[in-house]
């Protein structure tokens, strides 16, 4: 089982879009996938068509109140979701009653998901205790990146955080980057991509996810792009990305 944190402290880089569509694409290939919404905003659940979230989610598991099996929602064939839950924000905000620990998620994942091929964690755009929990729980990270300068700046911050964790935890993360919201006709996009390739050789997944209006539309219908527009370029991008991720297909620098 691969446990993968989809992480970037910068907002708007496509974490939830990647989580919903990549997970569904991998599930369509017959792999068993669980995706955990670790963002208190709960947008992943909405993107997958779960709008009523009165019940708890991963928040209650992290608090030790429920088991992970109790929180699973089967959202598609081979794809199950664990929502964020309404009290996840309390863990992030370190309120007086919240448990101040970084290993809550790691402990929560110890049992109940053994039969899964992949567990993805859709992380919040922050650098608080939830991110600490995600980095504790996984040895593998997938970083969605937009191809603009501020995303580079954000990535620098993220990699600084990851390096600190690697030092403290004495482990090295397997890191992948996915270029999302890519606009190939913009010169700066290509230049950002070149910079990324120079710093992350053999780590950028081969398929870029191009910016399209379809990808912006489908969450409001609770559908992934594979359902909303199965024949679209975006759906093809995510299907190819799924294979990239499963097989480790990466971009190479042109020589």
């Amino acid at each position, binding site marked *: 089982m691969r446990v993968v944190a989809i992480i970037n402290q910068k907002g708007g880089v496509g974490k939830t879009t990647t989580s919903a569509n990549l997970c569904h694409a991998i599930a369509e290939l017959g792999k068993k996938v669980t995706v955990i919404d670790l963002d208190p905003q709960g947008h992943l659940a909405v993107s997958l068509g779960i709008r009523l979230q009165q019940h708890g989610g991963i928040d209650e598991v992290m608090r030790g109140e429920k088991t992970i099996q109790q929180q699973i929602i089967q959202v598609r064939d081979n794809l199950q979701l664990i929502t964020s839950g309404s009290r996840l924000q309390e863990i992030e905000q370190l309120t007086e009653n919240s448990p101040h620990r970084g290993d809550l998620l790691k402990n929560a994942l110890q049992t109940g998901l053994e039969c899964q091929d992949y567990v993805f964690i859709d992380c919040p755009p922050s650098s608080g205790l939830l991110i600490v929990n995600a980095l504790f729980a996984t040895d593998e990270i997938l970083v969605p990146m937009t191809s603009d300068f501020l995303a*580079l*700046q954000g990535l620098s911050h993220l990699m600084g955080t990851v390096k600190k964790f690697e030092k403290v935890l004495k482990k090295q993360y397997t890191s992948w980057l996915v270029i999302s919201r890519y606009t190939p006709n913009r*010169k700066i996009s290509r230049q950002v991509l070149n*910079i*990324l390739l120079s710093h992350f050789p053999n780590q950028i997944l081969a398929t870029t996810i191009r910016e399209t209006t379809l990808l912006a539309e489908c969450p409001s219908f609770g559908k992934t792009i594979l359902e909303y527009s199965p024949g679209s370029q975006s759906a093809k991008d995510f299907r190819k990305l799924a294979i990239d991720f499963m097989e480790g297909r990466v971009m190479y620098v042109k020589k």
Partner: protein
Amino acid sequence: MSKNDETENDKNNLIGYDPLAWMDQEVEDYAKEEIEVLQQSIMADDNVLESNYSNQSLQDADENDDANYNQSPVHLDAALSIQNVSALHEKLKKVLTANDYIEINLSDVASIDTATLQLLVALKKDSVKLQKTVVFNSPSPRFIESAKLLGLLEILDV
């Protein structure tokens, strides 16, 4: 690439600076951690040093070599990396053999890697054993930064 091409490329560059440039140091940082461990082992057991830069090997250096190698102060180059550490090792061995007081001028150092720092630590330790004196003078900011990162300021006495 001609200068005109470079100028043209600069004009076309839409990214003012690379926020990820610091990551280029990361590969070195792993090596730095290794040298830190090595440094600790040096303190714990001087035999580690002796295996690489032994007193015997220093004393055995050919005293008849080029006199230029024997001069102190020794000015270190701007770029110090593993590519030239072997040559520097030979040079320092000869200087150490020929002099009781060795001054190493670090003012030009613009970049230094862990291999070179390891060599300088070894030089310092060996000089103590030989009852000689090695002084590192005029360290550049880059040298101080690198030595500080590794916790070597004290051992190098800069």
